[in-house]
């Protein structure tokens, strides 16, 4: 399920699609409304230094936050989307893809990078919300699938950072089957005893929640992120009642047992390297036998 809403500009989600961290000298926090010098925000790992708000960022910023010296090698960028079904609503999917390619700084709704986290090599597949709402299409599934193969080959841990409005309707059942594909591939990562860390960020919904996002060996989330299967609007329409405060937020999921912990973006890198070291200190076979 997903809940894109059309606006004049094209397809966008019910919340602002564009990044909350624009280029410029000043950044105004949407939560505390304070104007912060952009350099200070960046220096604080893209967390509001005043109130701790976590603005939406893309793979570019996440890679900067988690990888040593902000350096990593991008993988599978050669995989590009295609309008296989010749889908057309008010415009064709092909047109949408072309328009998105023009304005987005990324090539799909997920970017894969390999780098070091405090010296520990790790693969990270990070979703980009500003690419058609972080919707899960064939390229998202294939890049994850290839990232898993890469991890198995090189014996590396995998981090997936989820940020998605759900399915990519313009790919219909192919979009649905990416849930099947990624879940099936994750069994191979597990078979190889390689850790899979799942980080859910605002928002993580629909088919992404109902597949890889919830399948981490370690499930974690950023503070106050919206995480759910059905969208709040759909639920509200179904039960015809207002939703309780904090419903489907990270803290709610932690309370109900679906997260191992909530992690501040500033602590993320250290936590990742701690977990890699603790889980991968011994060869898996000797640790088990």
């Amino acid at each position: 399920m997903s809940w894109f809403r059309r606006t004049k500009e094209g397809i966008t989600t019910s919340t602002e699609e564009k990044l909350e961290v624009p280029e410029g000298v000043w950044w105004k926090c949407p939560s505390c409304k304070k104007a912060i010098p952009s350099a200070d925000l960046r220096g604080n790992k893209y967390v509001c230094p005043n109130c701790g708000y976590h603005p939406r960022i893309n793979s570019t910023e996440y890679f900067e936050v988690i990888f040593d010296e902000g350096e990593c090698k991008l993988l599978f960028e050669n995989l590009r989307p295609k309008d296989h079904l010749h889908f057309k609503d008010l415009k064709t999917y092909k047109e949408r893809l072309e328009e998105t390619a023009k304005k987005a700084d990324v090539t799909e709704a997920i970017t894969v990078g390999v780098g070091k986290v405090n010296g520990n090599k790790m693969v990270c597949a990070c979703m980009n919300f500003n690419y058609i709402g972080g919707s899960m299409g064939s390229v998202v599934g294939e890049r994850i699938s290839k990232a898993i193969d890469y991890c198995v080959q090189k014996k590396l841990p995998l981090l997936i950072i989820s940020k998605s409005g759900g399915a990519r309707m313009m790919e219909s059942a192919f979009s649905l089957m990416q849930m099947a594909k990624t879940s099936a591939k994750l069994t191979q990562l597990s078979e190889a005893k390689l850790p899979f860390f799942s980080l859910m960020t605002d928002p993580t919904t629909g088919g992404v929640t109902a597949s890889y996002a919830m399948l981490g060996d370690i499930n974690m989330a950023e503070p106050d992120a919206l995480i759910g299967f059905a969208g709040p609007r759909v639920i509200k329409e179904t039960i015809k009642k207002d939703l309780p405060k904090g419903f489907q937020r990270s803290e709610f999921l932690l309370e109900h047992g679906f997260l191992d912990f909530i992690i501040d973006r500033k602590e993320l890198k250290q936590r990742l390297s701690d977990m890699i070291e603790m889980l991968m200190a011994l060869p898996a076979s000797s640790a088990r036998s």
Partner: protein
Amino acid sequence: MQYLDFEKPIEELNEQLEKLRKLGEGGKVDMTSAVKELEEKISLTRKEIYTKLSGWQRVQLSRHPARPYSLFYIQQICSRFIELHGDRGVRDDNAMIGGLGTLDGESVMFVGQQKGINTKDRQFRNFGMANPEGYRKALRLFKLAEKFNVPIVTLIDTPGAYPGLEAEERGQGEAIARNLYEMTLLKVPVICIIIGEGASGGALGIGMGDRVLMLENTWYSVISPESCSSILWHSWDMKEEAAEQLKLTAQHMHQFKLVDGIIKEPMGGAHNNPEEMAKTLKREIKKNLIDLKDMSPAERIDARIRKFSSMGFYEED
């Protein structure tokens, strides 16, 4: 008999037939040949309508109120059936049924969504929309089947996983995700058959099979045509067009290799002859089970992973 809008010509002819028969019963005029002629005309009209159904018309058929549901098929197919209940955690989900059946002397674990046959029953079954405990009940039965080396058949018929408050509290997303993962690794043969509606993650949550088959007049998609219309066209009126664009019919799905086969329905749809439909279904289940039993568990799991991993389209620069 309830007629769908596109079945109007059949309805009219059937009314004429009824009149003719009544006249014939009077005994004064012999209507035999006229009745026969009209019956042939009905059969021909039905054929004409049913050989060129649109995507939306198949969606309508998949939701026909007289269409047979999971428990009907199971009872028709099995000489013995013991329904099993509960997820051992929260409660029994009546939208997801399951149990052990005997199919020509062999045990099969059946799991499927169940819709209701009247207003009260539809509520009891929550319109075939399972909660997380339904998916967890399904998984418990899959594991039970695996333990005793019993093959699994799932019957898929749902407008979606239930989008409720408690469903979210109890982890609808996690429950479906867990099933996708665990079904991949099941050591026993798994056959999944879409018998009605195959809506999104709610359908896929019991849909990871060695063989995924669709009845002729069913649909499988990431979203219902209605919701797709409302989101992409910003109007509820484009459901027919959305159904075309989504390419959600069994014919499309098979052509895309997203499902492994199509099971033919009786002329006029499954509801037109449920017993015949059940017989066909049984034949298909048996045939596929025999094929799958020739493979080892490891071969089946490998093939399952390979099949689902190959789904997708993209350019490679």
